[in-house]
């Protein structure tokens, strides 16, 4: 292939291509189009129930799929060996991967293996028109600043990106390109790490990253019981419950619900923040939401600066009224 090569290391969970793979493929397409480059999406799995061709319709020029039983559950040892082999052979300029627990495990080891750098949790990616280098922007120092980082000499230039940072492109009706199954030396599938099993967590099914509505509570909720109010409201809206870090630290909600720099990034259609002040670290996890509603009694709370609609007052008064009103609305239909 000619031109710059962009590789997306996709994620497969439970035999399905995870949505972040489409988000990154779309972004890679955008970047590649600025410099006449090509996009390859790589999928490692124990087998796929989805058609890898959907990635061709989302911006990839080709898809490489590697299937092997050892990869049916996440296996860092085999992944690093297989990907290092592929990337050494293909010598891409840019490699993007999801900043999920899997991506954040495989990628640093892979980067070290390839003797190159890696930028974690990028929220912005663009090609520098002057140098042709990938500019990788990530929150730094607790989200107080954004640092833009580049990898001037070493190749590939590698970055991980949190799910929902970029929007998945609309799928085209049809697209060219090919799905290929590269030849991998069998010894690379021999893993020193042995998978013993997987237990799905209680929260596993309700990943707040996948929901259209997230209703979050912070320290202003004061008691764990107050989260019932949020749960009720979230349920009426078909959404889930998020929390700020102090609310999680107080054990009012579990860590899977934490939104922000050290929690999850969510980009729902509607984000409702109640009793949350709006610290930059929290904003880092929700600022790309479609419509933001803030409920806070402090008119100067920073959360109002990123809100489309602000309700200034006591949340213990406002939320029950809001819930009641929405119940009426939903029930009336």
């Amino acid at each position, binding site marked *: 292939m000619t031109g710059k090569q962009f590789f997306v290391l996709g994620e497969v969970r439970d035999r399905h291509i995870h949505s972040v793979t489409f988000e990154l493929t779309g972004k890679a397409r955008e970047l590649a189009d600025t410099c006449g480059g090509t996009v390859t999406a790589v999928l490692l799995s124990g087998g796929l129930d989805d058609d890898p061709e959907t990635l061709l319709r989302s911006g990839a020029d080709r898809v490489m799929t590697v299937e092997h039983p050892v990869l049916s559950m996440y296996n860092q040892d085999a992944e690093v060996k297989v990907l290092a082999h592929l990337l050494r052979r293909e010598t891409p300029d840019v490699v993007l991967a999801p900043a999920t627990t899997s991506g954040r495990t495989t990628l640093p080891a892979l980067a070290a293996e390839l003797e190159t750098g890696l930028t974690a949790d990028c929220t912005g990616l663009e090609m520098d028109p002057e140098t042709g280098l990938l500019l990788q922007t990530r929150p730094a120092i607790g989200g107080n600043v954004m640092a833009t980082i580049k990898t001037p000499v070493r190749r590939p230039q590698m970055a991980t990106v949190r799910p929902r940072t970029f929007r998945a492109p609309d799928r085209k009706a049809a697209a060219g390109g090919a799905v290929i199954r590269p030849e991998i030396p069998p010894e690379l599938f021999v893993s020193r790490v042995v*998978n013993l099993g997987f237990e799905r967590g209680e929260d596993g099914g309700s990943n707040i990253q996948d929901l259209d509505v997230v209703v979050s509570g912070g320290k202003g909720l004061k008691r764990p019981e107050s989260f019932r109010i949020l749960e009720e409201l979230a349920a009426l809206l078909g959404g889930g419950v998020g929390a700020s870090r102090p609310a999680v630290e107080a054990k009012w909600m579990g860590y899977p619900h934490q939104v922000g720099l050290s929690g999850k990034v969510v980009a729902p259609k509607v984000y409702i923040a109640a009793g949350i002040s709006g610290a930059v670290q929290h904003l880092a996890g929700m600022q790309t939401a479609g419509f933001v509603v803030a409920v806070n009694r402090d008119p100067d709370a920073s959360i109002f600066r990123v809100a489309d609609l602000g309700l200034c007052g006591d949340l213990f008064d406002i939320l029950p009224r809001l819930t009641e009103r929405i119940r009426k609305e939903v029930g009336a239909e």
Partner: protein
Amino acid sequence: MKIAVLIKQVPDSDDVRMDPETGTMVREGMGAIVNPLDLNALQAALDLRSAAGGEVTVITMGPPRAHEALRECLSMGADRGMLLTDRAFAGSDTWATAKVLAAAVKKAGPFDLVLAGEKATDGETGQVGPETAALLGMPFSTYVSALSLADGGVEVARTVEEGIQRQFLPFPCLLTVLHALNEPSMPTLAGKKRARRTEIPLEGIASIGISPEETGLGGSATRVVKISYPTISRTTEMFDEKRIDEGIERLVAVLRDMAVI
């Protein structure tokens, strides 16, 4: 059993102060602590030593004052400390840091187990652990929230997005750990006394056998080219105490328009 724990000294505050001119962190006058997750890694090492015997070595790369962090670990019960300090290390990115740590582990080892925090509160990359493992050629696991000894290795539970994954890793291996793993113990008086008596060798670049080109700014693959302040703002329609009902009606209309309800 010989265990190495990689620890990092980090600023002690949640509200890190910034120099508005330079966009850099104000370190002067700031307290420094051991990265909280590294204390979980240390506690795991101490627990394993209680169960199986052996020795725990804490290793850090940092400025001379990072010896305070090692002392704290010694007073919690670690046997030995190793401080890697050299001008040549300055400006290291995670890869350059991992090269130094891998060389140090090789020099102080061999170890059966290397433990690290899942991430540090200042860098927040979570990359140094897996990078070090790769450079040491060790199998590794991450996000470890439970750990037990098994025949010839360890069994771990990794907390990931959708649940708990169980894995076996043979020795020698490297693990990065989460807060849920254990409750770090407080330093004891006897521990503090012993810590004061224990000498912490200071190792420079020459003693771990890597060249200046491999580390520091020059040995890093990445460069920070710009620091900027996030500017996020939206036009907010505000409803105060007296207009809450109006605000609720407005919200219901928006939700209807967006087909949420």
